[in-house]
């Protein structure tokens, strides 16, 4: 029984050592560059949205501002508070940054290219469980935050750390669940295979609910506005990194932006066809070959980054309980329901050879009907409750002795004149 | 199929008892229906049986394998043995039982616990049928205990009367003494014969040493004495009259008390193998028959008097059963005829009590024949039957027993003959005191005839009492019917049969005449200036005293001694064990420190040792 074709990841793991080394360096450099650009872009775009100009002094359009900020941070005094747990305090930002870099190893940048004569894919590495690997590394990354919060020896930091890790753990579940549909369709957990599987249709079209859930949870996962509760400055000052300064703080900063880039890249890979050109352009021959796809890949990431910034400039911060409710009570159940539907669709297609279109019709119509009835019922119920609340002022009279045993009036009821019923009792 | 006859009443009893009060209305009818259908099943089986040739009439149905001891060939089946003997019993039990059910409908109509009563009656019928249908002693024992239980429940049915409660207890205890014998007998069979089924026991008893049938026979006789109220375990029967009269009629006259006779006849092969056991049976029978008659003659309580008579009549049956093949058939025959006429007389007594506000003192009766015509006639038929006037039933059975007894020994024969005279005497006394002579009842008593549901069973039973004897002895039909089971040999009395019959009739007539002449004038209160013998007879011939001195006091002494022994030696031993265990434990429990880590340490130590052991073995 073979549900899926043999996956061959034969292109990976055979690079000469120097190619691997160059790739590693390239990934590192790209990430740092992206971070610098993202910081600059964020400041400029948010400024624009707030009718300001933003940094415009260093370099053309102030484009070197990010670099300058980094240099400034690095040169600042490194304050280590007295109460910290020193080893962990130092370890925490390192974990954060390292894991942030590591994730990118499995992101495909492009197809196979000739690399100084060596044919190799534009991807550091890939293996059958790449996407799970991303999740795993992300979960290790949380350690950085928790430990930073704990080791600081400060209540603000501790609460921020706890909050942020609870948040990331919760949203990681929703995120993982949103992947499942992709796995079901691609039949693989390896990123390159998933990109390959999207040759015809991007999964954003097939699996729109998954995509939406992923996008929401990726914002939560990266602790970005409107979900930036761990560093909600009104309550927690700086959150887990309150006590950090100088280069250590810079590492957290770096990690946050790299994570943004990473989740964007992952979204691109899983839902937007990876490095493939968008539809009308993809008809032009040659756009999906060689070094060209890098353009598409980075444009897509840029779009995501812009969305990140846009959301930050637009939406107010959530309250913590609302945020948790969204994660646990909406995203996860929705994900589960959606996965069930996808699984049934796939199962029917695999076992009955039903084309997807028919399956969707077969399942979708009753599902929509059920959903509609439920919705109408709830709507009516809500209406009825509303009407009830309005009608509660209505006063009804009750006879407390009607059943022979006195009963107190309910709210909104008044007792009838006592004399008649008293008489009734005495007469009877 | 025959299992239905047991199952239906049992089911009905279970239903009535478990459903409780909600069956109050229809319960009695269900009960009667169950009993009737049991009778119909029995009748059908009987008819089927008569259509088969003699050799194929007996059959054993195994319902299931009851007790199987793995690894041995010991096995007890839940099997029902339907042969000529058991089917006779089935018919008697279900027929009389059904009639008494119907009678109870009228007799108990004002009792609020009627439903419970009927449930117990059904329980009794089921248990009794199980007793007579069982194909092995253990299953018989189940039925035996079942009827004991039903008897206990029914005697104590009116537990609110202390006398009834005490009587029930007494019956139960006295029966236990007998049951003790039966259980010992069963154990012996199991040990010696390796089986407890009738067939196997019959087959193996002949080859065993002579002490085996002797011991088992005596033990079975003890059981029979307990159940059938024979000397020396007779005392409970008179007290059992505290129960409702239908119970006295059914259980303590017609059926249950005859179970002892059934047991002896069923174990014929054992008794045949031991002359001493047989002679003991005869002695017991003779003593009981005379004792019962004397007690019956002295009692003023009509039911107690009848009870004495029952004891006496069962004495006849036991005597006959002790005579061996010449007597078994007549024992059963007398059992059946007795079932009819004694039932009719008990029912008559109940009817009389019903009419006189539950009075039982014959000195307060008299002249009831005018107001209770059906009762009088049916009772009189029963009277004629019991004293053995031809052509009524008792004549045929009792006369045969006397013949057989005479052919065995003069002593037994004359005792039986004397008993017949006594029977005539006390029965005449009863009839005269109750139905004839001057009315002596109290002011407020207004005697009246009983309702149809009571008189009808009496009429039917009296017809039986009148005709069954002649019907069964015509052409020796009953002898031939039972012969395959019990064996039969013609008795050879030392005198011509006709002579014996005439002598018997003469003795009976003498008894009747004495009975009439002594009872011309009946005082309302029993005279106190009487002979020592009469006093003894009124006191049940000191049966209770005998029991007390022979059994109770030594028993109590033994119990006291055993208690001291138990407390001191046995309990001491076990308390000592307990003390030792306790003191060891209180030291050992110190190892339970409550520290999880200590427990974990022991686990890890154990694991380490285990791994070490594996290592050592591998190396």
């Amino acid at each position, binding site marked *: 029984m073979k549900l899926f074709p043999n996956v061959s990841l034969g292109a990976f793991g055979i690079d000469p050592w120097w190619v691997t080394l160059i790739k590693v360096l390239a990934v590192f450099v790209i990430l740092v560059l992206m971070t610098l650009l993202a910081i600059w872009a964020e400041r400029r775009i948010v400024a624009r949205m707030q009718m300001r100009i933003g940094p415009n002094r260093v370099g053309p359009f102030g484009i070197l501002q990010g670099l300058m900020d980094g240099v400034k941070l690095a040169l600042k005094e490194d304050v280590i508070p007295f109460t910290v747990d020193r080893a962990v305090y130092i370890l925490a930002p390192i974990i954060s940054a390292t894991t942030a870099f590591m994730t990118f190893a499995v992101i495909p940048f492009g197809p196979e290219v000739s690399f100084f004569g060596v044919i190799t894919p534009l991807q550091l590495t890939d293996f059958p469980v790449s996407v799970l690997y991303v999740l795993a590394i992300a979960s290790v990354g949380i350690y950085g935050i928790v430990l930073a919060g704990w080791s600081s020896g400060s209540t603000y930091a501790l609460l921020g750390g706890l909050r942020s890790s609870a948040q990331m753990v919760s949203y990681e579940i929703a995120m993982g669940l949103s992947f499942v549909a992709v796995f079901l369709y691609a039949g693989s957990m390896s990123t390159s295979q998933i990109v390959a599987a999207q040759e015809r249709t991007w999964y954003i079209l097939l699996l729109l609910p998954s995509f939406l859930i992923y996008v929401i949870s990726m914002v939560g996962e990266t602790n970005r506005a409107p979900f930036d509760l761990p560093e909600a400055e009104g309550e927690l000052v700086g959150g887990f990194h309150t006590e950090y300064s100088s280069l250590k703080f810079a590492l957290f900063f770096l990690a946050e932006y790299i994570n943004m880039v990473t989740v964007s890249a992952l979204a691109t890979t899983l839902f937007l066809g990876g490095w493939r050109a968008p539809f009308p352009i993809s008809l032009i021959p040659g756009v999906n070959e060689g070094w060209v796809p890098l353009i598409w890949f980075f444009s897509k990431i840029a779009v995501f980054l812009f969305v990140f910034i846009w959301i930050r400039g637009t939406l107010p911060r959530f309250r913590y309980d609302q945020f948790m409710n969204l994660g646990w009570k909406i995203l996860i159940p929705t994900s589960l329901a959606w996965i069930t539907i996808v699984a049934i669709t796939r199962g029917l297609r695999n076992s009955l050879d039903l084309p997807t279109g028919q399956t969707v019709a077969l399942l979708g119509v009753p599902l929509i009907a059920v959903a509609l009835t439920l919705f109408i019922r709830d709507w009516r119920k809500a209406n009825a409750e509303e009407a009830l609340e309005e009608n509660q002022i209505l006063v009804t009279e009750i006879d407390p002795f009607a059943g022979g045993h006195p009963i107190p009036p309910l709210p909104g009821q008044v007792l009838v004149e006592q004399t008649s019923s008293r008489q009734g009792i005495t007469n009877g | 199929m025959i299992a239905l006859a047991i199952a239906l009443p049992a089911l009905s009893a279970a239903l009535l008892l478990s459903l409780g009060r909600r069956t109050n209305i229809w319960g009695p009818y269900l009960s009667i229906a169950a009993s009737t259908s049991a009778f119909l099943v029995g009748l059908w089986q009987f008819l089927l049986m008569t259509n088969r040739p003699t050799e194929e009439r007996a059959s054993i149905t195994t319902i299931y394998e009851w007790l199987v001891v793995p690894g041995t060939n010991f096995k007890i089946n839940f099997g029902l043995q339907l042969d000529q003997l058991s089917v006779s019993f089935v018919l008697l039990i279900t027929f009389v039982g059904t009639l008494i059910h119907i009678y109870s409908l009228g007799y108990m109509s004002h009792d609020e616990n009627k439903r419970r009563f009927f449930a117990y009656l059904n329980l009794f019928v089921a248990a009794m049928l199980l007793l007579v249908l069982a194909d092995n002693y253990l299953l018989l024992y189940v039925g035996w205990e079942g009827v004991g239980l039903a008897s206990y429940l029914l005697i104590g049915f009116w537990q609110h009367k202390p006398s009834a409660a005490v009587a029930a207890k007494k019956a139960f205890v006295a029966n236990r003494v007998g049951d003790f014998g039966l259980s010992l007998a069963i154990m012996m069979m199991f040990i010696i014969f390796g089986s407890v089924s009738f067939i196997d026991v019959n087959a193996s008893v002949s080859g065993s040493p002579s002490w085996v049938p002797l011991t088992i026979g005596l033990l079975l006789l003890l059981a029979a004495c307990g159940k059938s109220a024979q000397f020396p375990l007779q005392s409970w029967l008179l007290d059992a009259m505290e129960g409702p009269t239908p119970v006295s009629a059914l259980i303590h006259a017609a059926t249950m008390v005859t179970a002892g006779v059934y047991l002896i006849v069923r174990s014929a092969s054992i008794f045949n193998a031991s002359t001493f056991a047989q002679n003991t049976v005869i002695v017991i029978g003779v003593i009981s028959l005379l004792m019962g008659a004397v007690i019956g003659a002295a009692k003023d309580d009509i039911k107690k008097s009848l009870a004495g008579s029952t004891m006496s009549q069962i004495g006849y049956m036991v005597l006959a059963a002790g005579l061996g093949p010449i007597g078994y058939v007549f024992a059963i025959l007398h059992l059946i005829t007795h079932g009819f006429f004694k039932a009719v007389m008990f029912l008559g007594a109940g009817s009389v009590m019903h009419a006189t506000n539950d009075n039982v003192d014959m000195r307060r009766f008299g002249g009831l024949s005018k107001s209770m015509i059906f009762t009088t006639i049916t009772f009189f038929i029963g009277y004629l039957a019991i004293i053995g006037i031809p052509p009524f039933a008792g004549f045929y059975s009792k006369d045969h027993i006397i013949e057989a007894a005479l052919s065995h020994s003069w002593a037994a024969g004359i005792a039986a003959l004397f008993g017949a005279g006594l029977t005539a005497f006390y029965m005449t006394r009863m009839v005269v005191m109750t139905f004839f002579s001057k009315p002596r009842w109290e002011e407020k008593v207004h005697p009246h005839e009983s309702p149809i549901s009571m008189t009808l069973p009496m009429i039917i039973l009296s017809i039986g009492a009148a005709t069954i004897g002649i019907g069964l002895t015509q052409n020796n039909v009953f002898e031939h019917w039972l012969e395959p089971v019990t064996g039969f040999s013609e008795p050879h009395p030392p005198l011509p049969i006709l002579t014996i019959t005439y002598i018997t009739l003469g003795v009976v007539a003498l008894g009747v005449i004495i009975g009439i002449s002594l009872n011309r004038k009946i005082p309302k209160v029993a005279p106190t200036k009487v002979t020592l013998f009469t006093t003894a007879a009124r006191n049940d011939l000191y049966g209770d005293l005998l029991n007390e001195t022979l059994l109770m006091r030594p028993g109590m002494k033994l119990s006291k001694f055993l208690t001291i022994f138990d407390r001191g030696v046995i309990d001491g031993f076990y308390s000592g064990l307990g003390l030792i265990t306790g003191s060891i434990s209180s030291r050992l429990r*110190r190892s*339970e*420190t*409550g*520290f*999880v*880590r200590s427990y*974990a340490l022991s686990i*890890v130590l154990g*694991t380490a040792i285990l791994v070490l052991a594996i290592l050592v073995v591998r190396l």
Partner: protein
Amino acid sequence: MSPNAYLVLSGIIFSIGALGVLLRRNAIVAFMSIELMLNAANLAFVTSARVWGNLDGQAAAFFVMVVAAAEVVVGLAIIVTIFRTRNSASVDEASLLRW
């Protein structure tokens, strides 16, 4: 490379885990030690799977993980409850169940 090296490693980690249970009083650390022992067992499973050339060992390890997760959830909830009532997470203080 000989699989026995993996087994030895598994044994060593298992023993250290056992020692942790025996020596550490903090309930949470004791619990971690138990997790360590389970992990050691998993390593043995995975190694055996490779040795025998079938995946059953890996499936077993998978189940161990899931069950361990369930165990941790309940165990930690118990620890939290105990901590709430006695304000201590020491296993030695919860020693009422003794003679």
